[in-house]
């Protein structure tokens, strides 16, 4: 190596810069791809795995109905969870000790017990409350009201609300108090400051997590099969109980879950970009695959 003082570039000549090679990266990639290839080969040639059965069931009406129920339940439960989360998240930050304690109790109870237990609890509510009577709203036997869908909605929604309230509380607390003060000093009410200043900034922190929660909920709803709600997983289960093509039908369900969660990811990308207004560097590194999917989608929309 030349000493710095004798650097040949001093004369004003410039040189081409040659980047370092990374041979081990290529080796590692080759190894991983080989293993993947072998697995794919094995799956394609597996004895007793009938891809034709997968193809047959992939686009049947009964599977679509199951998928639709999964999406409905996911949407409704997330909506209920979000509403409860906002209410209890704000309550938790309240200066009123009763309100904040009640919010704490809610989170403690519903985050501290298994979701499957909560589902069974709602589903079997008729055992302790055979009749529900709220003057002017409902007056009927619990068995009639508490359908599998409603039990699943309450179970997932209320459970999600407990997690969501913590997410929203964290988001609200992540906005510096100076933001509220600046708004107040301009003559704003607390409600205006929260709605126009704090929430939009909190959303930037909250939204990726809500996206993850939604993806989680999409898959979690499969547990509703255990309280007789025939969503996507429950439907495939019913089919393979009768025809014994277990793996094939699980692959069918898996394919639709993957497609649905991929579409949700794309939606999340756009939402995050929208609330990222004013903040240049938005968020996390995406994998090569995520980048490909999103770029492909953007191109497709452009065309």
């Amino acid at each position, binding site marked *: 190596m030349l000493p710095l003082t004798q650097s040949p570039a001093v004369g004003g000549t410039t040189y081409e810069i040659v980047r370092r090679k990374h041979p081990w990266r290529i080796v590692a990639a080759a190894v991983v791809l080989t293993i993947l290839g072998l697995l794919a080969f094995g799956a394609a040639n597996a004895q007793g795995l009938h891809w034709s059965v997968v193809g047959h069931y992939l686009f049947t009406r009964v599977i679509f109905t199951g998928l639709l129920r999964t999406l409905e339940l996911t949407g409704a439960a997330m909506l209920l969870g979000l509403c409860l989360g906002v209410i209890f998240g704000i309550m938790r930050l309240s200066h009123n000790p009763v309100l904040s304690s009640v919010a704490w109790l809610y989170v403690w109870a519903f985050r501290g017990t298994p979701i499957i237990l909560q589902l069974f609890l709602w589903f079997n509510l008729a055992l302790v409350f055979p009749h529900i009577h709220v003057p002017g709203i409902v007056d009927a036997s619990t068995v009639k009201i508490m359908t599998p869908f409603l039990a699943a909605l309450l179970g997932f929604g209320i459970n999600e609300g407990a997690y969501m309230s913590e997410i929203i509380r964290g988001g609200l607390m992540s906005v510096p108090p100076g933001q509220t003060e*600046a708004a*107040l*000093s301009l003559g704003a009410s607390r409600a205006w400051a929260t709605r126009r200043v704090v929430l939009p900034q909190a959303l930037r922190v909250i939204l990726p997590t809500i996206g993850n929660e939604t993806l989680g909920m999409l898959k979690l709803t499969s547990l509703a099969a255990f309280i007789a709600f025939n969503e996507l997983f429950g439907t495939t289960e019913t089919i393979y109980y009768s025809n014994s093509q277990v793996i094939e039908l699980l692959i069918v369900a898996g394919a639709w879950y993957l497609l649905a969660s991929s579409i949700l990811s794309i939606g999340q990308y756009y939402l995050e970009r929208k609330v990222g207004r*004013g903040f240049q560097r938005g968020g996390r590194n995406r994998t090569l695959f995520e980048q490909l999917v999103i770029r492909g989608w953007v191109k497709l929309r452009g065309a």
Partner: protein
Amino acid sequence: MALDFSADRAFAEGRPDVVECHGVSKSFGNVQVLRGVDLQVRESEVLCILGPSGAGKSTLLRCINHLEGIDDGWIKVAGQIIGYELRGGKLHELPERVIRHQRGLCGMVFQHFNLFPHFTVLENVMVGPVELQKEPKGQVESRARGFLDRVGLGDKVAAYPAQLSGGQQQRVAIARALAMNPRVLLFDEPTSALDPEVVGEVLAVMLELAQEGRTMIVVTHEVGFAREAADRVAFMFNGKIAEIGPAKNVLEKPSEARTAEFLAHVLV
């Protein structure tokens, strides 16, 4: 050039008091931060408040626009008692709706700017008058652009705060405060969070405002600015105003030993 307004402006009789503090006390828990502060600031006067940290300077400013309630005494801005209403010999805390209106009397500039990061520069300046004072948008926009020109940021209207330097952000914050047409501007250590090379541009804007006759209360550590811009300087120690008077007198011939000691430290 040192500007000496003290002789002809600050103590001109007949100018009304814009801010009056009488026996103002404030505690946070067991810590008493203000211990009976008395203060009058007249129209068009520039008052700089100096003193060590923890003396209660910022708290006093925050009490003047009721970001903090007070425990004793009263504060008037433009003749109105801030945050409270005198009824039956007692001061009753006012509803939020009235306090909101009173806060419009003061324009506050914070140490950490506190611009809204999700709004553009222009939106930051316009949001108060348009959404909170319900003024027509067109009128406010031309006024807001005017103030942004005044602070030298006419070309940054579409930028977001994160794209600006600290000095530029603080100048936007000053424009935002001005757009509310306040009776008094409150500056809470406006240059303390800035990089040294941009302190000057903010002080220059503040000096210009002082010279055009705006009423200003400036909590600062910039003794040079106080000497140049202030009509009067107050020293706060331990929750009280230890010394107050014309800038020249206080800064050059302080009568309090503590003031002299503080100045000796700051001016090193």
